[in-house]
């Protein structure tokens, strides 16, 4: 265990040395991010140890807290849209729960904290990433395509129809990294769950089966969360009189 931490710190130090030597100007940022990652992951490990001994509902409380933090991150990407925080949290929670439950209903994993927390957090994390990218792009599309959106509105189109092409572009762009990952799964990289299971001595076919189930689920969670968020946040870009808000610029 100490060797693992030593390896992580050494790699971080090598990166920092290179960054300072080449004067990239991001040394401070990397130091803070690295220290945060180390502290956060150690806290999480200790927390999980405690959670394993607590009743199961505590695991869901922790997942909810994770979803709240994820929702806040996505909300800050939305340009702090009206009702954006609650929408982001609800979208991420709904999508993650929807994809988490089948793993336990179908008996793929036992309903225990050691399975609920990691699987839930993977789903929440990916739902957050895709939603953040999607809302950021959606806002940009509406801003850059103001003339097109207003041309629709000027014909009497409702805001959801006027912004539909922007919404579609927002979701598609946010899903590109996931689609590329899916295409190259097993060719360019072996994803985390499968790596962990193989390192733990699991059967490769079983590891691959679980990985593909996780992979399609995180893809679906990202797509559902971002679709819900973008669909329900559309009204926030418009006034009650179906006018595109001026302050978007």
């Amino acid at each position: 265990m100490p060797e693992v931490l030593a390896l992580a710190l050494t790699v971080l130090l090598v990166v920092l040395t290179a960054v300072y030597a080449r004067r990239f100007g991001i040394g401070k940022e990397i130091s803070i991010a690295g220290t945060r990652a180390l502290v956060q992951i150690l806290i999480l490990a200790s927390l999980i140890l405690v959670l394993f001994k607590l009743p199961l509902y505590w695991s869901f409380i922790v997942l909810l807290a994770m979803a709240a933090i994820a929702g806040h991150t996505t909300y800050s990407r939305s340009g702090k849209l009206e009702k954006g925080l609650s929408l982001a949290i609800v979208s991420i929670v709904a999508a993650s729960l929807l994809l988490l439950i089948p793993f336990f209903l179908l008996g793929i994993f036992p309903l225990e904290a050691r399975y609920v927390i990691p699987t839930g957090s993977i789903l929440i994390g990916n739902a957050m990433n895709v939603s953040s990218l999607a809302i950021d792009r959606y806002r940009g599309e509406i801003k850059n395509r103001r003339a097109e959106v207003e041309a629709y509105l000027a014909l009497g189109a409702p805001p959801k129809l006027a912004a539909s092409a922007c919404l579609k572009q927002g979701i598609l762009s946010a899903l590109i990294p996931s689609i590329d990952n899916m295409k190259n799964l097993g060719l360019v990289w072996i994803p985390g769950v499968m790596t962990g299971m193989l390192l733990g001595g699991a059967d490769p076919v079983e590891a691959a089966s679980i990985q593909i189930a996780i992979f399609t689920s995180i893809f679906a969670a990202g797509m559902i969360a971002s679709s819900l968020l973008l669909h329900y946040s559309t009204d926030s870009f418009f006034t009650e009189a179906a006018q595109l808000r001026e302050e978007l610029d």
Partner: protein
Amino acid sequence: MDQAHVELKNISKAVFRKVNNARVKTQILSSLDLKVQRGELVTIMGASGSGKTTLLRLINRLLEADSGAIMLKGRDIRDYNPLELRKKVGMVFQLPVVFKGSALENIAFGMKLWGDNIDVEALARSCGIPENLLDADASQLSVGEKQRACIARALANQPEVLLLDEPTSSLDAKSAEKIEELLLNLRRERNLTVLWVTHEKEQAERIGGRRLILREGRLEEEHA
């Protein structure tokens, strides 16, 4: 009896403009009044940034006035459903924006939206769009053809009022005159009330109608 078709009462509007990366509030329209009768043609001239476009956008409620009231047939436009108001008050923008799809799909947009039944092909013909272009991808049309498609698309909503925001400014002189002629013919045929914004005095003279100048936030009659 004497009710105006469109009436602007004491309209004021300020907008935010970016100056050196800061948002600066600028008063565009100040206590502006205007009465336009049914079927009347009004041209509005003014320097760049004088608020001509803002004025049109207030009339179909793409923008909200800070104070005052705008009446359509004696009724405050805020009492209309904004989407239905925009069906009655059509607008053609300075730069033609076509939607994804063919020219015909663009023109038929309002018909599908509102469930109306109109002869789209006849409308396209009356707007000078040749039949062989109807199935063409709208994004591939020339600027003049796109503007004709946008005019037809606005007219497919069967509006009572047409707001024209420098509809020929992106066209060459010959195409501009053709569009002018088309718009004037359509206005006569359909008894449309037209507010036509232009920055060219020569164009305003060619178009005719009542000529107004927007200066320091207010409209003044221009006398020949």
